[in-house]
């Protein structure tokens, strides 16, 4: 086995943040994707959208400044930047479904080689289905980036030939950031943009359930 160190959650978030350009309207999904905000360049205007009716989200407030009416889609306390705005859910999802969000960063259970994503429901008998805005974001955003571990806790590939879990949206993922690599989903298939130092292409392929290509 080669000698490499998987990226931490923060390091993955940093990779995503570096790929976000000034002027983009971005929705960061609940969980790991939310961390991307911490690594966005402070000197650039990047607009964070939260599906519960906020555009221009700022960092978390001091504890004393928390306001129960100012939360994000993950129900965490947030702040609003100068120039931010509030609106109702109809307008918020018009932004999403209407293709006005340039980029959405989502977590995922599985991504298929054609861009299908599963991230809402494991479908086991005792699970309670709960979708939130996941399906709207998957089909609506201009680009969808996924953050996830490259393999599951059991070592199973999460990038697969075709989904095993219930689908969230068809052919919507454009890029996957894992603890091991950054992979584009293209017309030509899964193209590895970048890998962690010390990892070989063959080893990455062995942890991936679909054929990878070198750029």
């Amino acid at each position: 086995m080669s000698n490499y160190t998987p990226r931490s959650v923060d390091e993955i978030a940093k990779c995503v943040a570096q790929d976000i350009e000034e002027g983009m309207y971005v929705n960061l999904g609940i969980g790991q994707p939310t961390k991307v905000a911490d690594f966005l360049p402070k000197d650039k205007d990047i607009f964070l959208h939260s599906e519960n009716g906020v555009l221009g989200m700022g960092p978390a407030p001091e504890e004393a400044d928390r306001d129960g009416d100012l939360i994000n889609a993950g129900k965490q306390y947030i702040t609003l930047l100068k120039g931010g705005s509030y609106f109702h859910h109809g307008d918020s999802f018009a932004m999403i479904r209407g293709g006005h969000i340039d980029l959405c960063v989502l977590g995922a259970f599985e991504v298929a080689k054609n861009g299908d994503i599963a991230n809402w429901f494991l479908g086991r008998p005792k699970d309670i289905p709960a979708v939130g805005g996941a399906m709207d974001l998957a089909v609506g955003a201009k680009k969808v980036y996924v953050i996830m571990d490259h393999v599951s806790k059991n070592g199973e590939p999460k990038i697969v030939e075709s989904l095993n879990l219930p689908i969230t949206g068809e052919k919507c993922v454009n890029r996957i950031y894992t603890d091991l690599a950054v992979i584009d989903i293209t017309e030509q298939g899964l193209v590895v943009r970048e890998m962690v130092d010390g990892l070989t292409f063959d080893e990455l392929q062995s942890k991936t359930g679909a054929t990878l290509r070198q750029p």
Partner: protein
Amino acid sequence: MLNKVTESAIDAMNHINDGATILIGGFGLAGQPAELIDALIERNAKDLTIVSNNAGNGETGLALLLKSGCVRKIICSFPRQHDSYIFDDLYRSGKIELEVVPQGTLAARMQAGGSGLGAIYTPTAYGTLLAEGKETRTIDGVNYVLEYPIKADFALIKAFQGDRWGNLTYRKAARNFGPIMAAASKHTIAQVSEVVELGALDPEHIITPGIFVHEVVCIEGDK
């Protein structure tokens, strides 16, 4: 002189009867009309269908309403939360019916209801479990699901300021579903933190015009 301000939350529940469909505002606790829900529990109407984004938190508001046994069915986008154990238990023991609707579709179906559309084609959920059995259509190369409006007998929402004509403003992200629920129900009851004189709200800043609001209840001391 028309005055939509109702003295107490209990009085505002007078019209709500068994079997009603009720939209309840809020995203988690933000914008959830807690005092109206308390009054609805006291009203004790049975066999209700509730439409709300979530299915309640802890032992407050919407969660308590579910616990009261008044709710037959809930339509929501995200029932499962870390503190939704009341709903979870009811669901797992088959005591409540659940319809999961994607959040944007939930909003769009209520908007369709409030604006008199008969149905809409939305791309959300195409090809998923949540579109199973639904009519679909491909338009200009994109796949859509046919969704029908949600219209309700009542809406209970939380706003910030209100006046005697029922005009409302909201506070920050507590606006969430309030304006679209107000439009999608036959009888909208809004709890507000403050009732102001007619004319005190700038006509440019009114978010929900009074035409969509039937009763306004002031909850003293609420933010």
